[in-house]
């Protein structure tokens, strides 16, 4: 079989694995949170039921084409991120469409979905959506700054913008992982990750009581299904990005599952025991703490 065709098949299979792993991981995290709170929690298959239910619901509500396209853009951001992210190092077929300089594209795709969502939710015209968008974009801009600095730092360290080459440079033992060779950049990035994954204390954008639901205020039914699909994919791919950049990547699926689970767990662990910042407080915090650490990470490798 032609290699390109084979790669397409493996990429689609990888997307299916990532989607289901994201749903299962989400259920596991909710279960852990429930147990900490002395509750039994949801059944492990609840996210699949939610997806099927939401995709089965149609709506007669319309705010125009851009409103429909908002969740599509959001999902495109998540899938785009997946397509250019190498999953398993050592197998040409699980590297997806990763290429030289893919790190720059990955950074772009992180913002892409949110911008599309802002346009779509904005067309809805609901004031809660507008508030959520302004909060989300303000916060995400400041989240990206330390993350970008951390990535610049490791790009200087490894002299490449290719994720595959960064992962390959970390092979040969866990002491070669970036977390040990460049701990300052890792700290800046892991603090940013708390914001990227939108858990407390940085989840005011989607907080129910401070401002109901934020941008997706009017998205329900199949729109919500698309957003939930994106969320499952995005969380795994974001964790995979951090795994590749800072924790040596994965050479098999078992290692992939274990590392992405632990990286995702970090944000859940913090989120369970912290309330959320207001937006100006989180913006201020990201500019004061992770940004300074990020600058330090760059200076150390200049």
């Amino acid at each position: 079989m032609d290699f390109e065709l084979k790669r397409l098949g493996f990429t689609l299979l990888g997307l299916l694995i990532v989607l289901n792993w994201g749903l299962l991981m989400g259920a596991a995290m909710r279960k852990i949170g429930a147990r900490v709170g002395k509750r039994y929690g949801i059944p492990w298959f609840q996210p699949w039921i939610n997806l099927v239910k939401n995709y089965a619901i149609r709506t007669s509500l319309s705010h125009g084409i851009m409103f429909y396209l908002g969740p599509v853009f959001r999902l495109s951001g998540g899938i785009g991120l997946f397509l250019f992210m190498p999953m398993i190092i050592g197998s040409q077929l699980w590297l997806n469409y990763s290429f030289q300089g893919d790190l720059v594209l990955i950074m772009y795709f992180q913002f892409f979905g949110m911008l599309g969502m802002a346009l779509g939710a904005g067309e809805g015209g609901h004031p809660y959506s507008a508030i959520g968008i302004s909060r989300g974009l303000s916060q995400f801009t400041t989240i990206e700054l330390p993350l970008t600095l951390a990535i610049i730092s490791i790009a200087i360290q490894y002299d490449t913008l290719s994720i595959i080459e960064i992962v390959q440079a970390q092979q040969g033992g866990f002491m070669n992982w970036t977390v040990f060779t460049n701990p300052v950049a890792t700290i800046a990035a892991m603090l940013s990750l708390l914001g990227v994954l939108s858990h407390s204390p940085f989840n005011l954008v989607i907080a129910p009581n401070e401002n109901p639901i934020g941008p997706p205020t009017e998205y329900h039914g199949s729109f919500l299904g698309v957003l939930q699909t994106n969320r499952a994919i995005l969380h795994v791919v974001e964790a995979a990005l951090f795994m590749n950049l800072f924790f040596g990547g994965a050479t098999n699926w078992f290692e992939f599952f274990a590392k992405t689970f632990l990286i995702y767990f970090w944000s859940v662990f913090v989120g369970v025991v912290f309330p959320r910042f207001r937006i100006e407080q989180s913006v201020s915090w990201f500019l004061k703490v992770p940004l300074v650490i990020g600058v330090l990470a760059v200076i150390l490798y200049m």
Partner: protein
Amino acid sequence: MSLFNIDTDRSKYPQPGEDGKLVVDLDSHKYVKLWQGPNHPGVTGNMALELTLAGDEIVQAKTHVGYLHRGFEKLIERRLFIQGMQTSIRMCVAEPDTNEYVYCQCVEELSGIEIPEMAKWIRTLVLEMSRLQSFLRVVPGQGGTTGLGIGVQWGMYMRELILDRFEELTGGRIYHMYFTPGGVRGLLPDGFKKRMEESLIEIDDFVKRIDDVMYSNAVFKKRTVDVAVLDPRWVDKYGIVGPVARSAGFKRDVRKDYPYLIYNQLDFEAIIMNHSDIYNRSRVRWYELQQSVDLIRQIMAKMPDKGDFKAPTPNVLHWEIPKGEAYVRAESSRGEYGLYMVTDGSDKPRRVNLRGPSYTQAVCLLEDMLVGANIADVHSIMVSLQTCPPEIER
């Protein structure tokens, strides 16, 4: 404007007009009118807030009630005295036993009934259990308003333990109907004190954990310290009572100022602080939660084991009470809770009027307090005032 500080230029905010009221020109597109409620996770019940925002700061706030009006007072005025019981307890779902007490006490005062000593001990015990279950909801609930859900879940579990004790004592978990004109419906079941002590030990542990997770949490402090500070002048202006007044340094506690039942035989002091922001209002409730635990222990240690629990009353279906009026107050978890009853010699009350703390705190005080606050803090402020819309619309 520096990088980390909020813009202090107020010129773009609405300015007072000739009549002293702010001039808000919505057509200027500088402001947004936003409704929070009546169906919204960020309000504490069936009421709505009409907010005018400049950016994310509130420049005007109006409270709207009327979504829950069931005419409790008028319903009571058209029923026999014994039938008024089941209506009165529904005037505040969160803490119905205080309603039971003030209603029964009004009927007893007007008909000249003195309840037995044992009934006084049991009533005091139930009232403190009621305050405790209310605090177990609202203390961690303050964290919940800022996204700290874990404390709420722990608190709900602890509250369930107290509801278990209510169930074995009264047969009901939320609405108890345990007080009755003349006393209470029965004595404590066998082994009740032991099981209550076991529940209190778990609550002692919860108190420590909530201190670690919530009150010592830097983010929680950031969200609540110096936010929505109560101007002490508002306390008398609006008749503020309970933990809200006590956190501002006003030593007002009905249990101390106008002792009722057997509170004068218990050892406790009103808890006060001197700076009423969200954090301190919640902190006062946290201390009062511990005080309730201590008072329950004192009551169980001091109360007699046996005795009459109900004074004789006339046939409740033909009970006519002489002409008169009475005002009975009690300290609920939200503060002074009073019922005014007028009788005209018939078998129904002539007039009933309830004075709950939420009436002023959730309407007048909230409107003043919200001005200048961040839109994200609205829910937190409402919970810090412990507003209960059913008792506004009675």
